[in-house]
């Protein structure tokens, strides 16, 4: 019994521990001093991020194999922490002087801790607990602007559907446990299943439960209402971070643990991916609210990422599996920047309208007319984010789509790639419309300067988007290396 043994084994938990400590510090300090909380949260995030990156190529298990620390988990932790940091920077301005800042940053950090544990989970129980930790904190965050009925509505809907989905997920998990007698992923992955109604039901229930977080059709319906109603900084966090929690859970639980059921989930994900991307893009066409449009675009993007799961279940060629999963990981990283940046840019406009006492719907497309003149940095950044989401070259979105689509083609699923490409073409319409409004229409409001904190956050996201698009080589390599976990 010695302390050194503990430290050497539990050292990998340090990023989570640091973040938790900062969260508790924030909520206690927040009782008295409020002005430094945002910076404190930021420091916590940076320290944690540094620790994760230092330990990137770790390979360890903890707590009786219920947590695993490998490049895959570290990769997702980096994504989560990056999104959290962006959100914190933008929140510095949005929640400046708010009486409940302590609770806000506390919840933000705790949600991140939850997501990070999901990335590390290697057991049904630890996955579920971490998943709930990450979810429940975001339910509260979505409803955080409690004077705004929309925000309350957003939180309420999110919570209701979330609770339902959790129940479904838990049911699926319990069925898996009932069939196999184990909850551990490593043990599950070595098991061969007898095809039966139970396995099918378990699989679909799990997909439904996780599909809620990933916002796959038809489990997506909370997403537009919540993204629109929630404070925009929180929407950024939800779309760019929390959603990825669903993906990492799906990767771990479905691709790693339930690999024996790949024939079954091939069909499920093929149907869901096609429906999701088509539905998302079609409905986004007619939206007037930019946050809603981004929500639907987010749904469509989830469809693209889900293509990787289809490819993985269809092909048995290692290089294609690696390309698909590496592509999905790269997509997730770049989507964090693109979508997070887009929401933050929309939030910037909303904030400026609020600050300049202009009483309109904060994210109506009309507010963006002539933005290139009144808020040039925001307008330019938003343009880049939207083009990136559409998949225009020299942005992260192009590289991501290229990787996933070519994986589909190499995997022998050309029809899927064709559908996805047609969808991308369709999506350009609603993205380009916003750009047109920003650059060619006359300014509607007189906005007085762009808020620094927002601009910093937006520019950081812009840097990520462009860097991943122009010089993707090393990042693609990392994603591919990480994706070797799935082979």
């Amino acid at each position, binding site marked *: 019994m010695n302390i050194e043994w503990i430290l050497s084994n539990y050292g990998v938990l340090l990023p989570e521990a640091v973040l938790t400590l900062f969260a508790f510090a924030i909520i206690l300090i927040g009782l008295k001093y409020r002005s430094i909380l945002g910076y404190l949260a930021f420091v916590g995030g940076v320290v944690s991020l540094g620790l994760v990156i230092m330990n990137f190529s770790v390979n360890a298990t903890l707590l009786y194999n219920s947590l695993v620390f490998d490049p895959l988990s570290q990769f997702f932790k980096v994504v989560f922490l990056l999104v959290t940091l962006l959100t914190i920077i933008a929140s510095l301005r949005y929640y400046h002087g708010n009486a409940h800042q302590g609770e806000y940053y506390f919840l933000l950090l705790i949600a991140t801790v939850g997501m990070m544990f999901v990335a590390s989970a290697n057991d049904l129980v630890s996955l579920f607990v971490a998943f709930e930790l990450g979810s429940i904190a975001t339910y509260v965050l979505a409803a955080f602007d409690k004077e705004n009925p929309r925000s309350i509505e957003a939180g309420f809907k999110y919570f209701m559907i979330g609770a339902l989905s959790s129940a479904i997920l838990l049911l699926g998990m319990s069925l898996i446990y009932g069939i196999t007698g184990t909850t551990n992923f490593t043990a599950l992955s070595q098991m061969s299943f007898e095809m039966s109604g139970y396995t099918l039901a378990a699989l679909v229930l799990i997909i439904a439960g996780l599909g809620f977080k990933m916002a796959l059709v*038809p489990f997506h319906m909370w997403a537009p209402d919540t993204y629109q109603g929630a404070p925009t900084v929180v929407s950024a966090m939800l779309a760019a971070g929390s959603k990825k929690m669903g993906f990492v859970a799906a990767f771990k639980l479905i691709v790693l643990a339930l690999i024996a059921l790949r024939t079954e989930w091939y*069909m499920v994900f093929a149907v869901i991916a096609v429906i999701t991307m088509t539905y998302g893009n079609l409905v986004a066409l007619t939206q007037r609210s930019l946050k809603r449009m981004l929500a639907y675009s987010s749904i469509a993007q989830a469809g693209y990422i889900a293509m990787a799961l289809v490819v993985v279940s269809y092909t048995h060629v290692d290089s294609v599996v690696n390309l698909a999963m590496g592509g999905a990981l790269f997509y997730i990283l770049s989507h964090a920047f693109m979508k997070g940046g887009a929401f933050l840019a929309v939030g910037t406009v909303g904030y400026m309208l609020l600050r300049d006492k202009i009483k309109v719907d904060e994210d109506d497309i009309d507010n963006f007319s002539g933005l290139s003149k009144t808020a040039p940095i925001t307008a330019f950044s938003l343009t880049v984010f939207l083009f990136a989401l559409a998949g225009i070259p020299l942005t992260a979105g192009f590289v991501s789509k290229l990787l996933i689509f070519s994986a589909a083609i190499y995997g022998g699923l050309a029809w899927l790639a064709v559908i996805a490409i047609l969808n991308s073409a369709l999506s350009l319409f609603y993205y380009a419309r916003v750009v047109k409004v920003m650059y060619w229409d006359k300014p509607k409001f007189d906005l007085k300067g762009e808020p620094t904190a927002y601009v910093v956050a937006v520019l950081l996201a812009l840097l990520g988007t462009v860097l991943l698009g122009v010089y993707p080589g090393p990042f693609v390599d990392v994603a591919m290396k990480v994706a070797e976990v799935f082979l």
Partner: protein
Amino acid sequence: MQEYAVLIPLLPIFGFILTLFLGRKLPGQGSFIPVLAIAGSTIISVGVLLEIYPSGEVIHQSWHWFSLINIGILVDPLAAVMLCMVSFVSLIIHIYSMEYMKGQGERYYAETSLFTAGMLGVVIADNLFLFFLSWELVGLCSYLLIGYWYRKPSAASAAKKAFLVTRVGDVLLLAGIFITYANMIKFAPDSQYPLSLLEIFRHITDIPPLQLTLITLLFLGGAAGKSGQFPLHIWLPDAMEGPTTVSALIHAATMVTAGVYLVARTFPMFLAAPYSLVVVAYLGAFTALIAATMGLVMNDIKRVLAYSTISQLGYMMLALGSGAIIGMAAVGIAMLHLISHAFFKALLFLCSGSVIHATHTNDIRLMGGLLSKMKITGYTMLIGSLALAGIPITSGYYSKDAIIEAALEYGLGSGDLLPYLMGLFTVLLTATYIFRAWFMAFVGKSRLPKGKPHESPWLMTVPLIILAFCSLVFAGAVNSWFGGKIFVEYVGRTFERIAGTDPEVLSAMGGYHLMEVHVEHSFLILPLAFAVVGVLIAAMVYWAKKPDPESIVSPTNPIYRLLITKYYELPIIDFISMRITMGVAILTKVVERIFIDGSIWLITQTGFLLGEILRMAQSGIVRHYATAVALGTGLLIIGLWGWL
């Protein structure tokens, strides 16, 4: 120096960016920035050449952007000498234009800098993709610079004409690249970029010969567009609407040689392609001849030079075509003339610029007797004219002689003397038209209606002297005087060095019989004799006025009419563009408006409709959402159960 080779095209790009954005605020419109940038390129180019010359090594670096796009540089002997020429001539002309284009806006300096970058990119590119990108950049800059005085309608339309005509060539080139890619994708290993020149050279023998002929002829089409070969030469004389420095830089020394360089760069492909080199030889000889005849009657001093450029480019093509017999040495000979031509043609253009600067007219009928007033310009232009005519000691004599000799070897070897004869006769015409221009401008009585011409300032005359010096000594120094054909041998080996290609194998594939042809020495006197005769004719008619030129130059003379209308160029083009092109255009317009626009309209409307319908599912009521979740789960289970 080698590690800096990548900076050669990059420096002028930086120069472009700086000048474009900061030029307005800097003294002299920032004209010194491109000069410094290009001086840097020149120093690096020369340094690299000196470094790689003794060992004959090759610099090859490339960077991937996925497997799709590859940026790389290849400096072999061929590229190295071309880089030195392009950067050096550009530098000289940039210095000259600091004075000549003073106060005409910083856009000029920025664009010429960008042009130089593009041209250096063409030369240094290690793959056809980057080559094509730079090629188009060069074309774009040419368009911008021809139309530099875009308020002048003739300049604007000349720019448009140049752009459209070269576009024909560009499309052909692009088609050639596509076919190459389709072939190469089968042979190139995954790790290699299929459009990389080295890869292509390694796999030439894998491409079917007739496809190779198609590819090379398409490349030749591209080269004809840029290098003004018949029948795509029509844009080049009109391009003289741009500033004279632009004519010197783009339409004499560098850009127009890009086409020749393309053929030289892909010469192994031509050598392995049946019939292609014969086409190259004939096209070159014919262009040389026909352009020289038109040059005889032009009155605009710059147009005389423009036709002369076309004619000389034809010579270079002829040299490349004679590679059917003499093999890789043809590349060396063509490049030798290309570079010596670049010097003396740039010199001639800059001299004419100096003259125009002084007299404010382009028309040689209005000049005369300028020699006494503009001594430096006059004598340097005389040197240029002698070089162009091919009188001994000058650079042009050695380089052009080499071509005529090569053409003769080709004729004797293949039994087809026609290209040689055309080339030989062109020598006579060349000497005549250039001395006609020189005599009309510089001797006799002044016919200027007003103004007193005077010599140009030193910023303009110093470049003239430098270029005159180069025109005098270049080809002799590198290829003749110090024993042996140093230049031709060095450049001719370029393909052995980069890809280890064996000319014998390639020519066997193309059906050419490479051989050493012995040429009688007495034949080699012929071009010189023709050149002297040409000068004498010009001197008799335009200096001694016996017979009086007025008696020949009359609208009733059918030959004169044929030449002055440029072989009825206008009606023919009119017919092609107005009847054929318009017909096709109307047809495509109908197709586009009804079928393409219509289907797009249909697609968008369907999309909107579907969007509106699907939107209704989003009721905003949580009960419905929960129902959707439950229903979705249930349907998936049932569907999956049924499917399995």
